[in-house]
Each structure stands twice: as C-alpha cells, then as structure tokens.
C-alpha cells in the first residue's frame, strides 16, 4: 500500500489541523501570552507564510527535509495525543488509566491512516463545515456573555510573550502542514493559514468569556475553553464533541504525514509506516520528557524547518529530462 493524498484534500486537512493545533497551543498549552494570544497567532501566520510559499520550490525528495518534517510531525503528534488522553481522562466520569485511554485513540488513528490520505483530507473538508456550524451555534447561544473588555490590556504580558507565542505558532504550523509535502501536485498553500485565522478568532472569543487571570492549571484552562463557567449543560456536549473530533482530525493528519514521509524515506510498506507512526506517537505521549520535547518543537521546530527548506531549495530540482535548477 502506498500512502498518498491529492492536493485539494491535503490543503483542507492541513487547514483544519492547523486551526486545532494553534487553538490547543495558545489557549491551553501556552497561557503566557494571555490577552495577546490572538496577536501571537497572527504573527505566527506571518512567519510561516514564506515557508509555505517556499515549499513549492523545494526538492520534494530531499531526504533531510523529509526526515526533519517527519520527526517534527511525529513528535508533535505525541504531544497532541497526550493532550487528547489528558482531556479524556479529565472528562471521563470514571478514572481510567492513560494506557486504557490510548488504546481506542491509537486504533482509531491507525484505521484513519490505513484509509489513506484522501479519506483524511475529505473528512477534513466535511469536518470544517460541521465544526463551523457547531461553533456558530455555540457562539450565538453565548453572545450575551461576551465581554470585549476582558481582552484588555490588549498586549497581555507584552511584546516578548507575544513574539514568543508567534514563533511557537509558526512551529505548530510547520508540524501540522507536513501533510502538504506528501501530495505531488503543486498549488496554493497559503489557504492553510485560514486555519490560523479561525484559531485566532476562537481564541479572542474564548478570551471574551472569562476574565484575564495570571494563574491556572492546564486542566482549568481546558475547562474554561469547554465550559467557561456559563455554558449550560446542553452546550457542553457539542463543545466537547468539537474538541475531541478536532484533536482526532489533527492527530490523523500528523500521523499520516509522519507515516507517508517515513514510507518515502525507507521504502517500507505504507501500512507498516502507519502503524509505526501511531505507535511512536503513543510512546512519545507517555515520555517523561514530553513537555521539554514539545517545548523544543514549538520553540525551534519552525527554525529547523526553515533551515532544512532553504537547504532543499538550493539543491538542483530533478526534472523529467535530468537535473534542472
């Protein structure tokens, strides 16, 4: 089996995945930006835009670039899987072991990857419409609770934190856009950044539902995002469904990208590469060093990808007739 994806579904999948990753990163994982989180998202998009444009000109069979992006994708998938199991562990009515929570998520991911890229991509297209409709309903039902004053002071902890958040956002965009390296056809890639715009809007909306605080654990931030202290019980189910489905789609994208890049690097069977990608994400999600690994991806992932892409772009591009420039 060969893992592949067409350009159109790849872009749709990347757009949804980027939105979920930036939302998870800025609203839950990294609270330091606070009121300025939406600005960080936009700065991250600006930083990542040249990289996305350059992807068109790089040599796709650069082993180093494939290895780098595959690694970043697999490691970040581990971080997202850890967030997913943590969310499930918190929301489950009974306490369940993390391993038990990993098994169904892992099996679902394996099933997704084995269905190949187009299935993931077209699911992303459907999902983006469903998610938009669901989010619109949730937002409209809570309109009276939005307070724009809670987005002030507008720069949050200041420019340092916002720029740090911007660089991390660019790292997350890289880690979730690797799927674009799989499709053979070229095409506009900047549309992926619409996902960042959506995430920035959601972060701003979420910020208007709870007053700015300077403390709070990961779980409390997740609770704020899904419940915000005012959402009635009947709205919490769609919000939780949106959260889990969004994370599952993100994971499917990242695992597929890691598996496909591994397949192209090693020549192994696609199914085996899919299984290896899912198992590696599961292993990474249980590592004690995951927080520092995930901080590295967010902090240096973009820089590493930019360097590798620049190196690949300088190499001569292989053409039908031979080696071109």
């Amino acid at each position, binding site marked *: 089996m060969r893992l592949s994806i067409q350009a159109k579904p790849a872009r749709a999948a990347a757009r949804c995945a980027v939105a979920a990753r930036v939302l998870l990163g800025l609203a839950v994982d990294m609270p330091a930006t606070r009121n300025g989180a939406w600005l960080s998202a936009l700065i991250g998009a600006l930083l990542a835009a040249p990289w996305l444009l350059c992807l068109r000109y790089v040599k796709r069979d650069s082993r180093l670039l494939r290895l780098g992006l595959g690694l970043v994708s697999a490691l970040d998938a581990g971080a997202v899987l850890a967030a997913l199991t943590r969310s499930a562990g918190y929301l489950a009515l009974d306490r369940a072991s993390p391993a038990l929570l990993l098994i169904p998520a892992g099996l679902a991911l394996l099933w997704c990857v084995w269905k190949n890229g187009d299935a993931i991509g077209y699911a992303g297209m459907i999902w983006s419409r469903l998610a938009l409709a669901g989010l619109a309903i949730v937002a409209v039902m809570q309109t009276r609770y939005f307070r724009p004053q809670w987005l002030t002071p507008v*720069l949050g902890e200041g420019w340092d934190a916002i720029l740090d958040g911007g660089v991390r956002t660019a790292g997350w965009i890289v880690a979730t856009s690797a799927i674009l390296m799989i499709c053979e056809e070229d095409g506009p890639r900047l549309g992926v950044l619409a996902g960042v715009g959506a995430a920035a809007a959601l972060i701003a909306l979420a910020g208007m539902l*709870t007053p*700015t605080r300077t403390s709070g654990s990961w779980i409390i931030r997740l609770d704020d995002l899904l419940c915000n202290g005012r*959402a009635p019980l009947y709205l919490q189910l769609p919000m939780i469904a949106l959260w889990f489905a969004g994370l599952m789609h993100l994971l499917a994208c990242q695992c597929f990208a890691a598996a496909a890049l591994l397949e192209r690097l090693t020549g192994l069977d696609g199914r085996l590469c899919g299984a290896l990608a899912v198992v590696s994400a599961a292993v990474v999600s249980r590592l004690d060093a995951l927080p520092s690994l995930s901080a590295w991806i967010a902090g240096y992932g973009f820089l590493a990808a930019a360097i590798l892409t620049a190196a690949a772009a300088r190499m001569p591009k292989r053409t039908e007739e031979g080696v071109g420039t």
Partner: protein
Amino acid sequence: MLLTLATLALTGCRVSGELENQAYVLVLGMDRSAGGGLMLTAKVPQIGKSGDQDGDSGGYLTFSAGGEGWPEALEALEQATPRKMNLSHIEMIVASETLAREADFDALVTRVSETPHLYTTARFAVCVGQARDFIDGLETVIGSRLSSEIDAMLDHYAEQGCVPRASFADAYYALKSIYGDPVAIRGRTVGDSETTAAMAVPADGPETEASPMKQRYLGAALFSRGRMAGALDAEQTAFMCLIRGERIALPVSCDGERYALTPEGAAKRSVAIDEGRVTLRVSLAFSALDDLCAADARTLEAVIEEKATGVIRTCQALQADPFGFAEAAAAHFLTIGDWMRFDWRSRYQTAGIEVEVRIRESEGG
C-alpha cells in the same frame, strides 16, 4: 464522520453511570465546623420520589460531613452518601457568611472550582447563619423539582434586581482575575414566626405578604481581596446591577409616590484617568412607565443619582469593585504589567464619582 459520532459515546453512560447509582447533589453547602474544620452539606434528590404526590419526605435528602479541609470534607461527604456522589448537576453552592469572611476563603473557592466534574456554573450564595440550616429548609414550593425551583426563583429575583446574577465560576474567575471583585447572592433562613416576603424589599417599598418559604433573599454579598467584605441590601443591589449593565426595571419612591422606570439600554460605564487621578463615570438612561411630568422627572433623576452615587461610595469604602470599573480602566493600559503596577484597588478607593441620570418622560406626562 465516524470519529465525530464516536465522541457521543463519551457521555459515560454505562452500568456504574446509571441514574440509580448516582447521588446528584443539587445544593452544596459549606460551613466552618465547631472544631475549625470544614463542614459540607449536600441536598440530594431521591430517585423516583421527586414529584411524588404523597407528600411524605418531599423527595430530597440532606447529608452532612466534615473534615479538616476541602478534600477531606468531600471524601467524608462521599462516605456519608449511600450512592456515588455526582457534582456535575449542582444548582447552587452556599457558603456561610462566617466562612466567607475568613481570610483564606479564596483558597477554598479555588479548591472547589478545581474539583473535577463539579458544575461551577451553579449559583453562588452566602447565607447569614449556617449553610446547613439554609439548605435543609430548601424545598419545592411552586414547582415539582427543586432544581427548576431554584433556577426560576433566582432568575425572578435577579430580573427584579434584588439579587445579583452570580455563578460560582464567575466568583472564582473574579477572585483570580486582574480586574474587579466577585459578588454573591445573600440570603438567610427565617424562623417559623416570621412571615415577610420571600424577597427582601426596601423599607419604602410595597407592604410585604407572607411566604411559605424558609429562605429570604436579602441582596448581595460583596467580596474584596478574596473574602467577603460587606453586603448590599435589595435596593442597593438593584443599583449595583444597573451600573453593572443589567437591564432591570427600577421602582423608585419620591415624595410618597412610587414610579416604575425601565432602562433605555445598558448603563454606560467608563473610567477617566488623568495624571493618576481616577474618575468613575456612569450614565443611566430610563423611560418612565407611569405618567411623569418634567419637574418630577428632574426630581427622580436627582434621587437616582444620589442613590447610585451612594452605592458606589459604599463599595469604595469596602474596597470592592463589583461594577466592572476595573475592566474599563484596564483598557487604558497596554500590558498586564503596566496595569498591575497602577495599583487599581487603592486608586479606586479614592476615585471621584460622576453619575449622569436621564429620564425620558412618558408621552402623557
């Protein structure tokens, strides 16, 4: 699509999650016990008994248990309850005033808020006396379910402006936020001989009638620096709610006459900062429901201005900002650091007040 549908299975409905195996806590109370520990009280519906017409137990049970702190008391309450205690459907959390006035009350609120599966959207009330007595006396009066009764009753009082719209989550957020202070509903239990209305009314308000309820809702409890700092009566609470931006009809007495005013939009609240000096500005606009001549309207404007200013002064003296002035002031700053260095609380206490009231007379006036 399959994954999206699969998330619906996350509701956890399996054998251990069956309705009959759960003790759904509707009201949770917190008291300081005689030994200095924390005493928790839970009102739980009897499954199948709620709404029974035989009128024996009313379909609700009250359990109490105590411990040194929140986790110990919660564990003891779990043991005292003969089913798996479920905190995901709490309607109201009640703290005794004694407990709410303690210095480390904010730490308790944080512990409660961070308890997994505790429904923090529940209403938040502070009661005079013991929370256990307050909860014990809660019963259905008009409705068939206590949960709906509490919702409908407190919504009704909030629409009248006699109690604030206060959720436990909002109290937690406000305690932890960089802005203002939280408020809570204030209530008390009455003796059998007391036959006043269930909702507190101003001294110059209409005559009160008897209520079969054992609780009286008195206004708002104010918090400052993480603990209860004082209270507002029902009328002051109505003005506080108006300044906060809630749209409530305001009955005002003037020269022995009582007028009903309805707000024309939410109050406009702003903060002027001039060389470190702070001025709190409020603009209230009403239209009169009754016939009102221009002279009476000007008199009423002066009465409302005086009362609104008085409520703000009361809160300033308590160093409590339940109005949201801090949020308006924070917009003057670019970063959280700048805002925190401004030291809002001390400046708020000495801030000037400018209240502007405008009443549009009725067409027949």
